[in-house]
């Protein structure tokens, strides 16, 4: 690490001579996945990559370049100089923070976790799924990942942190004649995960609920989005509306709704980037601005939008510490860890209280429609039909249509079943009305 710090400071020094100010963003990623295909171990991989990007402010404009050839900084600097005359005018100064509230996201036990035990874990998981139904063909991936980020700028700002992620995913296919039934789940965390009981029980429920194909559903229905359903159907269109860039340009449906009631009073969604041992957590954002806990929706009221430095500057606001970036793109605002606060209704009660409805667990084609306008429009890849309070079978050849702003205006209930979905979303089930469904008969 020390050697990288040296390289970065040298690069910063050199860049500084060519312009008014500069910032270096360094990212290194180590990833070791083991892959099971058709129930059998197939591939062991080791992926190592690192790179830097440079923002150079020269003659009052932002130049930008990136490379993964870290030890040859000249091309990087020349490219940034070449882009600067065309780049945007900076509406900010690089921050000079050096001290942050620590957020622990690295467990060294993840990187040192033995491959042999990962293999055992995978074999055991595949066997348990096949005990549920020996016809299921399983693909499984277990990986350990370590990412290190360093941000340094010529105003004295400096930040570095490391995040470790241990991830397990299991996907099963069950083919019967021409019917393909897909089951599966995933889990991840900063620490090694050695207990796969929850994954097994989730797949077991899917196999049970989906055993039979339900008769067709058409017209307006009540829809229970499970935590995974919320992740695929609701969060992406909703968060695009909170992006400060869309708000600034007036393309967000929420652009003029700050401090107004837009959603059901029961809805509270916050950014919680400060929880220890959650992969999406971070002490600062990708520009070195401190992260903080912040409400986006509180009791139905729009409370904040998400900003990085440039978008905040353009909007006469402060950065909310929500800059996200990859190696090859400049920062852009986004949520770090979405937390949808739970309600007090159990999932079983939601089902029991539904006369004519559906459960949405996974969608096919979500996000491939007018997301910005809030559209929910997709095939239900994994979902069930509810009739008179009972789950009666799996949906098939069924498409749903709705709008997230309509669906969340008056919700029927909020679950008490909060769950982490990946490393950056915690949500309960959400019970909505006003979703329309159509099935090919």
């Amino acid at each position, binding site marked *: 690490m020390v050697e990288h710090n040296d390289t970065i400071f040298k690069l910063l020094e050199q860049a500084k001579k060519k312009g008014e100010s500069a910032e270096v963003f360094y990212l290194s990623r180590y990833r070791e996945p083991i892959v099971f*295909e*058709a129930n*059998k*171990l*197939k*591939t*062991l*991989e*080791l*992926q*190592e*990559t*690192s790179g830097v990007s440079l923002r150079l402010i020269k003659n009052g404009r932002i130049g*930008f370049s*990136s*490379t*993964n*050839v870290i030890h040859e900084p000249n091309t*990087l600097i020349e*490219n*940034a100089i*070449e*882009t600067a005359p*065309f*780049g945007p005018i900076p509406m900010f100064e690089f921050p000079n923070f050096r001290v942050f509230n620590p957020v622990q996201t690295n467990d060294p036990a993840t990187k040192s976790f033995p491959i042999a035990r990962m293999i055992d874990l995978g074999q055991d998981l595949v066997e348990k799924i096949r005990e549920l139904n020996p016809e299921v*063909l399983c693909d499984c991936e277990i990986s350990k990942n370590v990412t290190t980020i360093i941000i340094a700028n010529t105003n004295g700002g400096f930040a570095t942190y490391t995040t470790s992620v241990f991830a397990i995913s299991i996907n099963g296919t069950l*083919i019967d004649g*021409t019917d*393909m039934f897909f089951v599966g789940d995933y889990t991840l965390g900063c620490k090694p995960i050695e207990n796969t009981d929850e994954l097994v029980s989730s797949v077991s429920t899917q196999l049970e609920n989906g055993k039979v194909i339900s008769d067709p559903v*058409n017209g307006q229905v009540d829809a229970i989005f499970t935590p995974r359903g919320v992740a695929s159907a609701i969060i992406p269109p909703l968060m695009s509306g909170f992006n400060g860039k869309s708000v600034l*340009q*007036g*393309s*967000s*449906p929420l*652009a003029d*709704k700050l401090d107004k009631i837009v959603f059901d009073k029961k809805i509270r969604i916050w950014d919680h980037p400060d929880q220890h041992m959650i992969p999406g957590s971070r002490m600062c954002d990708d520009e070195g601005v401190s992260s903080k806990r912040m409400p986006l929706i509180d009791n139905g009221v729009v409370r904040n939008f998400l900003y990085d430095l440039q978008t905040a500057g353009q909007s006469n606001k402060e950065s909310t510490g929500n800059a996200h970036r990859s190696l*090859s*793109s400049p920062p852009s605002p986004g949520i770090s860890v979405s937390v949808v606060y739970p309600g007090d209704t159990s999932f079983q009660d939601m089902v029991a209280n539904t006369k004519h409805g559906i459960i949405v667990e996974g969608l*096919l*084609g979500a*996000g*491939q*429609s*007018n997301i*910005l*306008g809030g559209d929910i*429009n*997709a*095939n239900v*890849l994994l979902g069930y039909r509810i009739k008179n309070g009972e789950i009666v079978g799996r949906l*098939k*050849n069924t*498409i*749903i*249509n709705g709008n997230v702003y309509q669906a969340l205006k008056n919700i029927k209930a909020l679950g008490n079943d909060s769950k982490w979905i990946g490393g950056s979303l915690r949500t309960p089930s959400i019970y909505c009305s006003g979703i329309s*469904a*159509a*099935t*090919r008969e």
Partner: protein
Amino acid sequence: MIENLEDQISTALKNSKAQYVEIRIESTSSTSLRYRGRELDEINKASRMGGCVRALAGGGWGFASFNDLKNLKENVLTAVRNAQLVGGNPITLMDVEPTIAKIRHEVKRDPTKISLADKTRLLNEYVEEIWSIPGISTSSIGYGDAFHHKIFANSEGTYIDHEKLDISIRLNAVARDGSEVQQSGISLGSAGDYSKVEHLHEHARNVAQRSIDLLKAPQVKGGEYTVVLEPVLAGVFIHEAFGHLSEADHIYEDPRMKEMMYMGRRFGGPHLNVVDGAAVPNLRGSYQFDDEGTPSSKTYLLKEGILVGRLHSRETAAKLNEKTTGNARAINPQFPPIVRMTNTYIENGTATPAEIIGDIKDGLYVSNWYGGMTSMEQFTFSAGEAFRIHNGKIKELCRPVMLTGNLFTTLESLDAIANDLDMNQGGGCGKGGQMPLPVSNGSPHIRIQRCLIGGA
């Protein structure tokens, strides 16, 4: 790229004790520009270098990727050691004639020779065209070009040094009325010819006008419709509806899938011919050798409605005892190659577009695209625009729709194919975390009976 690279590669390969080893090295230089509203919001000139080693030992693959090229020998050892840890039944690869080749990419108008000043001037013109339409709320334009220099070498004596160029552009306009937000966009691309993205001024005005018109457009009711797909969307349709299931890695280890996808099975009418091939020249999915060093080909997937071929890597071809097709591709050296499509299309039929629309009493005409996805059996594809067809005529504009289908019923319901094949070069394909891979797809106008559409 690097001094003595060829020697270093051959030394590293020589020392290995595995059944098979390959090394891929790639350097990429790229430019990307993004306008949000009237301002250039993002600009990047990037250079990347990276490599990987893949080794086969017995029943498993070992893979190591890196961007420090100084330790090739050690990287080979890592990959071989990983492969040996896997164990299991031996894997064989279909034979491919060892080749030594050097391929240079030549294009009419090379984007790497065009200055940033010229590129921004062109994109600024498009921005102005969009904003010349009153009522626009905002716009975005994304442009990217990339030049790849790739080296592939394996322990069988193949050494291929080749280049690839790729360009993509998206123009998007947004209109808003209160909390109603509608957008319209178009994606285009080319295998490195800049002139293909130079004359899009009219397209820019059209997407702007369309986004405004969509605010007043009605939403269709969900249900089954007779639909006519224009060629670009029909290209996305065939990519999702059949292309992915032709990728042999979905089939080769799955006995049930093999039963389902047997050669000679009928999927569509005798008018339906579907092709994939990187050997079809000058498209975004075109190349001479894939990322396993296998020569590309043109493969019929469906001939007269019957399954006659599928897409292979060397491993899947050997396992199913079928010919290699040269479809093993990796998006960059960080990933191992997997079976992918290249240029996928439905061949021309005999009807004119007017004829296949002409006898529809009530239906939908759908065009342009947001995207598409498949789960093999079921698939979705979303149209950017939909119009009602009434008494054989295309009538009023409706809101964008999502269409969904099922492999075993939708191709059967494809009952008419026109004679105006056009290729969609604006898309990128995602699979196994590798995205967006340059591909093209296309079709003439096609008609599908009882296609399921999501709506109010």
